[in-house]
């Protein structure tokens, strides 16, 4: 039961989600008594990074035609080298674009948003996120092949070093239907879905000019910033920062919500966070019922003070 995993890179550099997917694939392979083969497209990073998380074999696809992303062409490329009946993907935007196309190509079942190692391999059954984080589904795959995408930060990036070998596959996949015109990557900003700590704020901040203190707290914590839906609707923050049912679903280790009342739609996007801190001047804010720690008070006094105290312990 060969296990393959798609190790996603950005501009050749492996993503944290790729390491998590490899670690997940290693857990699956251990259950199956087999090994992990990782597939990557035009990586520049060393394969050693993938051996560290359990990939015994790394297939590096070299294809100039895949310099820019196309879901269809990438699915075709992965299909040409993934010669197994379990294929693991991270649940990133790119990977979750490729996986459905590959599933149809291969006639495989596709289970997305897996939250834990499989409950069984034959049939393949796994717990997955559903109802926007308001419930869980135990999904069973039919047939002989399965593709599983792993929800980010759910399984964890677990080291499990093996000795590995690398193979280069030169492909030339047709990529004629789509063409990337421009690509903008904001540098130095933490990816919200990958971040282990997220500082988020809502209308309680009173205006976009007050976000400096949120960003400072985030900087001190090495966190990404996020916001509630009303805030992105008003345009105080970009919609890429909106977390919730119709925004991004995240599962950091620590989620700090400032001035967010905690509507059910907001909770749907963040209740997979391991620890939730709520800071709100309204003691009746419903978010306190879903929090681990709460502070009732004025965010404009609490946030700068908290930032200083965290700075002190971080040295």
């Amino acid at each position, binding site marked *: 039961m060969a296990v393959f995993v798609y190790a996603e890179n950005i501009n050749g550099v492996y*993503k944290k989600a790729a390491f998590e997917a490899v670690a997940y694939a290693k857990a699956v392979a251990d259950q199956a008594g087999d090994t992990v083969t990782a597939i990557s497209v035009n990586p520049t990073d060393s394969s050693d990074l993938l051996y560290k998380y359990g990939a015994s074999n790394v297939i590096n696809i070299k294809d100039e035609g895949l310099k820019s*992303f196309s*879901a*269809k062409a990438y699915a075709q490329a992965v299909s040409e080298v993934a010669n197994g009946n379990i294929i693991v993907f991270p649940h*990133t*935007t790119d990977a979750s*674009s490729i996986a*459905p*196309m590959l599933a*149809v190509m291969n006639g*495989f*079942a*596709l*289970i*997305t*948003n897996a939250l834990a190692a499989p409950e069984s391999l034959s049939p393949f*059954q796994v*717990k997955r996120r*559903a*109802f926007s984080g*308001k*419930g*869980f589904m*135990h999904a*069973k*795959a*039919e047939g002989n092949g399965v593709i599983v995408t792993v929800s980010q930060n759910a399984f964890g990036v677990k080291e499990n070093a093996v000795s590995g070998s690398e193979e280069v596959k030169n492909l030339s996949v047709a990529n*004629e*239907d*789509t063409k990337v*015109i421009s*690509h*903008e*990557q*904001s540098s130095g900003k933490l*990816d919200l*879905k990958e971040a282990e*700590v997220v500082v988020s704020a809502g209308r309680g901040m009173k205006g976009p000019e007050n976000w400096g203190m949120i960003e400072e707290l985030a900087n001190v914590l090495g966190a990404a910033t996020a916001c509630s839906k009303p805030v*992105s*609707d008003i345009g105080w923050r970009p*919609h890429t920062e*909106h977390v919730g049912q*119709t925004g991004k679903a995240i599962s950091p280790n*620590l989620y700090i919500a400032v001035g967010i009342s905690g509507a*059910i*739609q907001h909770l749907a996007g963040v*209740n997979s966070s391991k*620890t939730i801190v709520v800071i709100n001047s309204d003691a009746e804010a419903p978010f*306190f*019922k879903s929090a*681990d*720690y*709460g*502070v009732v*008070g004025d965010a404009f006094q*609490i946030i700068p003070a*908290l930032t200083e*105290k*965290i700075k002190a*312990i971080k040295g």
Partner: protein
Amino acid sequence: MKILVCISSVPDTTSKINFTADKSAFDKNGIQWVINPLDEFALTKAVKLQESQGATVTVINVGDAGTEPVIRKALAIGANDAVRVNLDPKDSFSTAKEIAAVAQNGGYDLILCGKESIDYNGGSVPGMVAQLLNQPFVNASVGLDVNGAEATAVREIEGGKETISVKLPAVIAGQKGLVDEKDLIIPNMRGIMSARTKPLQVVEPTSSEVKVQGVSYDSVPPRAAVKIVSPDNLDELVRLLHEEAKVI
């Protein structure tokens, strides 16, 4: 230009989610049904293209007769006509197969969908439809222009965005940003009245092949009671996060 918009009927965003006593299924009792909010962005975009480019907009839903109020709402928002595939969908693949079967015969230039439904969160149907039709696919789209036989789509990527030209026909899965939230169309009385007489065709499913089964469901376990820390004692909050939760 012919546009097909895929819509899903989902529990209202404020719904509490419960499961049947034996945990084998989602409990539909007392649920209000709405158009999947991410599909609404796609539908509004299609109606805008209808206004600006004279496109015709067909909505498709795979569902039993209970989804018809949601389909009528889509017609009231501005779609020209609708197709309902008479199947209570069991998984993404069976849903995608039915949509692809209808699309195959319809000669659509563009298929628009939300990037995922807020109930089962599969996020799989749009990509599967694209592959079944052998069409290009752009996911997580936050912008779209159509110019003749080509579209320009902006897709969100982790930490940025990418602008792509796409040959039509194509499948585009959208999200918030495809249109602004404030531009979402609330049906007016005229739209609601005209929706009653717009064509809604019901077709039977072509197959019942299922690839994934929901075996059982769990609710989210409640968190332990919140520990309230005084704003005058933030050292205690830092200590709890450092020593108890071990997250900083």
